[in-house]
């Protein structure tokens, strides 16, 4: 057994691996099987729309996971993570746009419909290469990563921390939103990219494709979780924790605070990009409203509700908050914002560790002999 394998195995405790495997097996195998094998009127049948909805939520969960990596562990609250998500989504959307080919309204094989509509003569250079799936997939990771690297390098180098960083990341996503709203940008303006037909040759309206995308999302989320776990458990992860708790001290000891934060920020943006790329084929549209600052702030509440600094808490939080959102917007739309707003207040005031914290507190109550876990620092 090599050292890397050993470290991989050490990522989780035995119980942790068991739970992870069980959850993975349920999500990636059982849910699709329940959809395919059982007849629609069976009590345990999972309808296709439910699989699709779950796939969408899992993309959100991946975004929350990405935010947790940087917020929960490095103490950097980015309010611009929606931008990385949307950029990944646009990259995949561009690929699917090119796949439409002659099947668009104008039947133009060389240009997407909106460009024909705007009387554009030829494809802009930044659309070149998006005919290839693998190029688009690469861009879905590379573009958010590059943006995060440049932005983070500028910000962390000049030691912009805390709320200042939150505010300028918000300004970043706001600026991108305004930019993508412009028709001249060549990304479909207000309407964004939509009317997709197929991906890798499979029709998007087919049930099989939907389930395939869902399974791909489960796998991607699991990998992202393991990567994050690996980073957090490494030496770098401990430096990140130290940065979160006492940034100046880490710098005085001689560690590169900028480097550590920049690495985590870039990886986090890449995960967000992948989440966006998986999200767009499942919902069928990407438009500039994904860049709106409000969306990004909502991601923070998913992470906070689940319990930040735990990696699986944010996944839980994204699933439960979005589940509640689906329920409320269907049953009582006017209550939803009260609920979401109240959630922000209640979680910050009473549940600083989120649902995960609540669960461990309950466990501690039952077994008071266990040693109390380390107190969470307050300045995160």
């Amino acid at each position, binding site marked *: 057994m090599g050292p890397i394998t050993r470290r991989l195995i050490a990522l989780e405790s035995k119980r942790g691996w068991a739970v992870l495997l069980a959850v993975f097996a349920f999500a990636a195998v059982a849910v699709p099987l329940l959809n395919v094998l059982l007849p629609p009127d069976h009590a345990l049948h999972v309808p296709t729309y439910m699989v699709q909805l779950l796939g969408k939520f899992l993309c959100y969960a991946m975004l929350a996971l990405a935010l947790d990596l940087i917020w929960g562990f490095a103490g950097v609250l980015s309010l611009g993570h929606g931008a990385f998500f949307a950029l990944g989504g646009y990259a995949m959307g561009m690929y699917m746009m090119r796949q439409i080919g002659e099947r668009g309204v104008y039947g133009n094989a060389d240009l997407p419909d909106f460009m024909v509509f705007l009387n554009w003569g030829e494809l802009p250079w930044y659309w070149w290469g998006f005919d290839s799936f693998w190029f688009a997939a690469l861009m879905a990771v590379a573009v958010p990563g590059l943006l995060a690297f440049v932005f983070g390098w500028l*910000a962390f180098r*000049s030691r912009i921390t805390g709320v200042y960083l*939150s505010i300028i990341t918000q300004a970043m996503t706001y*600026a991108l939103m305004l930019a993508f*709203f412009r028709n001249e940008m060549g990304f479909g303006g207000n309407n964004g990219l939509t009317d997709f037909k197929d991906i890798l040759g499979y029709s998007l309206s087919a049930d099989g494709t939907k389930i395939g995308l869902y399974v791909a999302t489960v796998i991607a989320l699991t990998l992202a979780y393991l990567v994050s776990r690996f980073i957090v458990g490494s030496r770098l992860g401990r430096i990140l924790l130290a940065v979160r708790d006492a940034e100046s001290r880490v710098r005085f000891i001689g560690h590169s605070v900028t480097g550590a934060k920049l690495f985590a920020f870039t990886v986090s943006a890449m995960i967000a990009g992948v989440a966006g790329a998986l999200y767009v084929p499942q919902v069928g549209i990407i438009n500039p409203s994904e860049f709106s*600052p409000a969306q990004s702030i909502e991601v923070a509440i998913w992470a906070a509700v689940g319990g930040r600094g735990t990696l699986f808490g944010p996944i839980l939080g994204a699933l439960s908050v979005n589940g509640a959102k689906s329920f409320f917007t269907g049953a009582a739309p006017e209550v939803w914002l009260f609920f979401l707003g109240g959630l922000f207040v209640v979680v910050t*005031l009473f549940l600083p560790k989120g649902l995960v914290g609540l669960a461990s507190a309950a466990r501690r109550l039952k077994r008071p002999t266990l040693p109390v876990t380390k107190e969470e620092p307050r300045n995160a």
Partner: protein
Amino acid sequence: MSRILAALGVLVALMFAPLAPAHADDAAFAAAVAGLDQKSFPKRAEAVATLGTLGHARTETVLRALADGTLFARKEDRQVVIGRLSGDAYSLSDAATGAPAGSAPSGELAKIIANNQMRGQIQDILGRFLLFSTDAEDRIRAADQVLSNPDASAVAQVRNALKTENEPAVRQRLERALAAALLSGGGTTEERLAAVQTLGNTNEPALRGLIQRTAANDADDAVRAAATSALAAIDRRLVFLDMGQNLVFGLSLGSVLLLAAIGLAITFGVMGVINMAHGEMIMLGAYTTFVVQQAFRAYLPPDLFGLYLVVAVPMAFVVAGAVGVAMERSVIRFLYGRPLETLLATWGISLMLQQAIRSSFGATNREVANPAWMSGAMDFLGLTLTTNRIVIIIFAAAVVLALAAFLRWSAMGLNMRAVTQNRSMAAAMGIPTGRVDALTFGLGSGIAGVAGVALSQVSNVSPSLGQGYIVDSFMVVVFGGVGSLWGTVVGAMSLGIVNKFLEPYSGAVLAKILVLVIIILFIQKRPRGLFALRGRFVE
């Protein structure tokens, strides 16, 4: 035969056209009317032009009939008649005199058709009749019409109008209109030179085009030279005017930004509380304005309506301030020292406030009227300034001065500064720090509410009003330097002006994006803003 006669008539009429008095004799008019009945459109247009210069009492009737398609020529004797459909046949009246001319079925009549060019011509001529209106506004409008579409045929009428005009403002417009008409053809060399002189002193873009054409095409060298130098002078003035305009627009945008951000300069800048519900305080102020307006409409006489804004200002301050105090006492005070949590909690409050307003007032825009004293415009050194812009600039300045004076000289202001500078020392001196915190936050929120009164005058009042200002306000405060009131003023004004100077080159949206990028880059260089605090208060 009759057609040749008619053509002759037009010719005669044309020869005498420049000399024709305001009320030409009926014969010339009749001849011109007869001239309308011709095959070719250009000749018909010529006849229309003649009618325009004659200024006969019936000109309007005939031209309107022509434009409406009720002007006919009777086939048997080519008499030009105006037909009104009654039953199957048309009842006719003579076009030139208005005398009844029997009736005829449509088969015996040939419609005289006007093409689009003639319609435009007719509009111009009918418009010019207003030059002699008793209403000065009408006369100015008529002169402006000639100015916007100058034509040699207008010369005689404008000259006539000038003879009797006493109103200086109208005279000025008429003189320019005459100059423009002369330059468009029909003026002698001396007249054209004088016209270039007259128009060289104006800044109107339409007239600049006319002078440009003159500079390029005029037959006379001297006129061309005069036009070329006049053009250069106009362009120089336009550049300055443009800059002045941008400056005023920039100041006005800056004042809006300043109003939106000044409350934040207290809550964020002085207290260090990230209040994401700040935009909603502005929104509450705007809705308070709406409610006050409705109350004025319902319960008070209409002549007091203009005062509603004056009442709305303290009301908005109280409403938003009270909500602010409630927020501080119930949520924010538990989160001091945890800025990121404060950010999330206040964001939650903002969502709830938005939904509360949406549930009680509806999701659509509510209409808030500009009172009469705020609408209108004035002319200042050639710049047109709308009154509401100026009022907002003055109002923003007044709010900042009042706030600065309050913080500097009032006992409460002293307490606030003491608590923010050294909390424990202030507490030791007997200052009730908790109450001061609540009141400081209330003050910042109340000022945001006051800003809402002003912003209700320039933007739509909807539940999401505040959302549009939140990023901008934070940018202003961060750019200006946290904790510095003057930094906020300078920050808001410079962002407003930079934005407006970029706009002509890049468009409004791109200008905004550029400004955001500039700020993000600026913060790299000076992470603590333009007017950073120095010394012991920094950390």
